[in-house]
C-alpha cells in the first residue's frame, strides 16, 4: 500500500467535476481510495480524516488542486498519474457547447431575452458578475456563499434601485415562473407565493404544499443573511412587493431564520400593503407582535404549508402518520445497549436542522448544534449538525449533492457508543444527488457491518413524486433498510423527541 499526494498550483476545477472524478478514480483497480479536491481548509480536514493529508497535500491552498490517493502495491504511482492525466483530459461534458461564452457581458449583449443570471462561482469571484448582470437589467440568482456583507448590501441596493431581484448570495433555491433554480423541487403551479431566507425551508414548504394539495406561484429565495442585521430584509421586502403585484399569488408565505426586528417589520408592512393573507415562520427566532399586521405565525414548515393551503381555499390533503409506524423503531430502541442514549442529527439542510433543534428543545431536550457557531470535536450528549454550514462546504459540493461527508458522520455516529438515535433529512429535487436514499443506505450498511445493529435511524424525505429521484421509490428503499420515514421534518423531530424520552425511561 502506498499514499500518493500531488499538488497542482493555480489549477481550478468545479467541485462537482472533482467529486465525479474522485468517485470514478476510486473505482479503478488498484486504487483503495482517491480524493481529488481544491485545497480549502474543509477539504484538507476531510483528507486528514481519511488519512490522506500527507506530503504535498499539506501545503495546498484554496487555489490549488490536490490529488491524494492510497494505492495497492499492484498499481505504481507513475501509472496511476498517467491514467489520471488521460481521464482529466477527456471531455467532462457529452453535449455540444453551442452557446458557451467566456465573458458574461458578451453573453448578455448577445442574448437580451435572457432575463436572469444564475451564479454559482466561488464566493470571492461572485460579486463582479452579479453587479454586471444587475447593471444590464437582469435578475440574479446567486448560489455562492462567502460573499462579504458589504457586497451583499451594495448588490441588493442596486437591485432595488433598478427594480430587479438579487436572490442571494447564499441562495440555495428559487422557483420562478415554474422553473426551479439551484436545489428546487418539481411542484405544482398554484396560488401560494413564498419569500424565503431559508433554502431548505423553501424546499420543505413548497413540497409540503404540493403534497398537501396546493401549488406554488413563485418562490423567491433571498439568501440566508437577508433577514438578519445589517441586511435587514432588503430583498425580502422587494420580493413581497413582487408577490403583491403578481395576480396569480393569493397567499404569501415568508420564511426566515433569526429575522431581525427591523426585517420582520419591513416584510410584514410590505405584506400588509398588498392585503393578501400572509403566513410567516421566523424559524426558532424571536417573533415580534404580528397582530397589527394580520399575519398568521407558525413555528414549523408543515404548519406554514397547511395554513397556506387552507388560506388558498383548499383542503389540506396530507394526513399525519399513525403512531403504529413507529412501533418498529421503539422495539429496536429497547434492544440497544444501555450506554446508547443520545440523539445525533446529521442534516444536509440548515433550516431543517434549525427546525429539528426547535422541536427537540420544545420537548425538553438539551442540545448542542453548529447552527450559530462551529462545534469543536463532538461534544457529549444530543448533537445536531448542519453539514451544509460554511465550515464544511468551502471548496466542496453541498451535501445535497455530495453525500461523502454525511457518510463519514453516519459511520462516526454508529461508532460512538452513546448514540441511540440518528436523525436525518433526505432532500430530493433538481440539482440534488441522483439517489440520496441510496447513499444513506450504503452508509448504514457499512456502519452496521462494522458496529452491529447500532442506533435507530429516523428520517424525513423532502420532495415530490414529480422530482427526478422519485419520492416513493426513495421512501420505500429507506424503509426497507430499517429507516423510520416521517411525513415531514417536524414530524421526524417529534418522533425522535418521543423516542429519546423512551430511552430515558428505559435507562432509568
Amino acid at each position, binding site marked *: 500500500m502506498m499514499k500518493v499526494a500531488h499538488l497542482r498550483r*493555480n489549477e*481550478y476545477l*468545479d*467541485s*462537482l*467535476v472533482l467529486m465525479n472524478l474522485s468517485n470514478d478514480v476510486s473505482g479503478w483497480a488498484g486504487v483503495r481510495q482517491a480524493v481529488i479536491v481544491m485545497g480549502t481548509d474543509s477539504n484538507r480536514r476531510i483528507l486528514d480524516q481519511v488519512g490522506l493529508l500527507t506530503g504535498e497535500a499539506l501545503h495546498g491552498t484554496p*487555489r490549488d488542486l490536490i490529488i491524494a490517493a492510497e494505492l495497492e502495491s499492484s498499481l505504481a504511482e507513475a501509472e496511476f498519474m498517467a491514467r489520471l492525466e488521460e481521464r482529466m483530459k477527456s471531455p*467532462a*461534458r457529452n453535449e455540444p*457547447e453551442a*452557446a*458557451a*461564452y*467566456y*465573458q*458574461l457581458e458578451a*453573453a*448578455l449583449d448577445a*442574448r437580451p*431575452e*435572457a*432575463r*436572469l*443570471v*444564475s*451564479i*454559482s*462561482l*466561488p464566493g470571492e*469571484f461572485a460579486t463582479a*458578475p452579479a453587479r454586471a*448582470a444587475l447593471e444590464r437589467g*437582469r*435578475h440574479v440568482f446567486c*448560489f*455562492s456563499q462567502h460573499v462579504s456583507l458589504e457586497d451583499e448590501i451594495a448588490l441588493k441596493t442596486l437591485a432595488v434601485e433598478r427594480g430587479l*431581484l438579487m436572490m442571494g448570495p447564499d441562495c440555495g433555491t428559487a422557483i*420562478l*415562473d*415554474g*422553473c*426551479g*433554480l*439551484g436545489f428546487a423541487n*418539481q411542484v405544482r403551479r398554484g396560488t401560494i407565493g413564498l419569500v424565503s431566507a431559508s433554502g431548505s425551508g423553501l424546499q420543505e414548504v413548497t413540497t409540503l404544499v404540493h403534497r398537501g394539495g396546493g401549488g406554488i*406561484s*413563485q418562490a423567491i429565495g433571498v439568501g440566508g443573511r437577508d433577514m438578519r442585521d445589517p441586511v435587514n430584509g432588503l430583498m425580502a421586502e422587494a420580493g413581497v412587493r*413582487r408577490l403583491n403585484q*403578481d*395576480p*396569480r*399569488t393569493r397567499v404569501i408565505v415568508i420564511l426566515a431564520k433569526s429575522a431581525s426586528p427591523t426585517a420582520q417589520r419591513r416584510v410584514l408592512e410590505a405584506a400588509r400593503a398588498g392585503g393578501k393573507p400572509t403566513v410567516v415562520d421566523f424559524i426558532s427566532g424571536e417573533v415580534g407582535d404580528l397582530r397589527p399586521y394580520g399575519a398568521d405565525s407558525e413555528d414549523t414548515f408543515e404548519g406554514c404549508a397547511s395554513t397556506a393551503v387552507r388560506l388558498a381555499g383548499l383542503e389540506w390533503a396530507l394526513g399525519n402518520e399513525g403512531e403504529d409506524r413507529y412501533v418498529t423503531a421503539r422495539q429496536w430502541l429497547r434492544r440497544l445497549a444501555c450506554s446508547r442514549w443520545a440523539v445525533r442529527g446529521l442534516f444536509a439542510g440548515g433550516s431543517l436542522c434549525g427546525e429539528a433543534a426547535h422541536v427537540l428543545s420544545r420537548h425538553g431536550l438539551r442540545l448542542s448544534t453548529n447552527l450559530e457557531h462551529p462545534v469543536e470535536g463532538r461534544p457529549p450528549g444530543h448533537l445536531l449538525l448542519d453539514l451544509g454550514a460554511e465550515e464544511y462546504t468551502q471548496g466542496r*459540493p453541498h451535501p445535497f*449533492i455530495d453525500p461523502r461527508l454525511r457518510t463519514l458522520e453516519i459511520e462516526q455516529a454508529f461508532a460512538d457508543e452513546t448514540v441511540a438515535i440518528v436523525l436525518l433529512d433526505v432532500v430530493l429535487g*433538481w*440539482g440534488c444527488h441522483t439517489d440520496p436514499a441510496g447513499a444513506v443506505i450504503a452508509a448504514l450498511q457499512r456502519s452496521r457491518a462494522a458496529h452491529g445493529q447500532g442506533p435507530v435511524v429516523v428520517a424525513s424525505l423532502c420532495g415530490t413524486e414529480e422530482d*427526478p429521484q422519485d419520492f416513493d421509490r426513495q421512501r420505500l428503499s429507506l424503509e426497507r433498510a430499517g429507516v423510520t420515514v416521517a411525513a415531514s421534518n417536524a414530524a421526524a423531530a417529534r418522533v425522535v423527541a418521543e423516542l429519546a424520552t423512551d430511552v430515558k425511561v428505559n435507562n432509568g
Partner: protein
Amino acid sequence: MADEAHSLSGALLLGEKKVVVNMGVEVFEDSLRRQGIEVVVVRWQPPRELPQDVARLLDRLL
C-alpha cells in the same frame, strides 16, 4: 380572468422565452435544460495568482 392571470405571471420574472444565463456549477445547467429552459453558458476560470513582484509592479503601473 384565470387565463389572463396565468399569462401575466407565466412571464413575470424569466421573460416569455425563458432563457437563463448560467455561470458556475454545471449540474445546474443540466437541471435547467431538463426543465425545458434554454441555458446560455458562461465558462469561467479563476484568475491566476500573480507572483508578488509582478503584482506589485502592476499595482504601481495601474
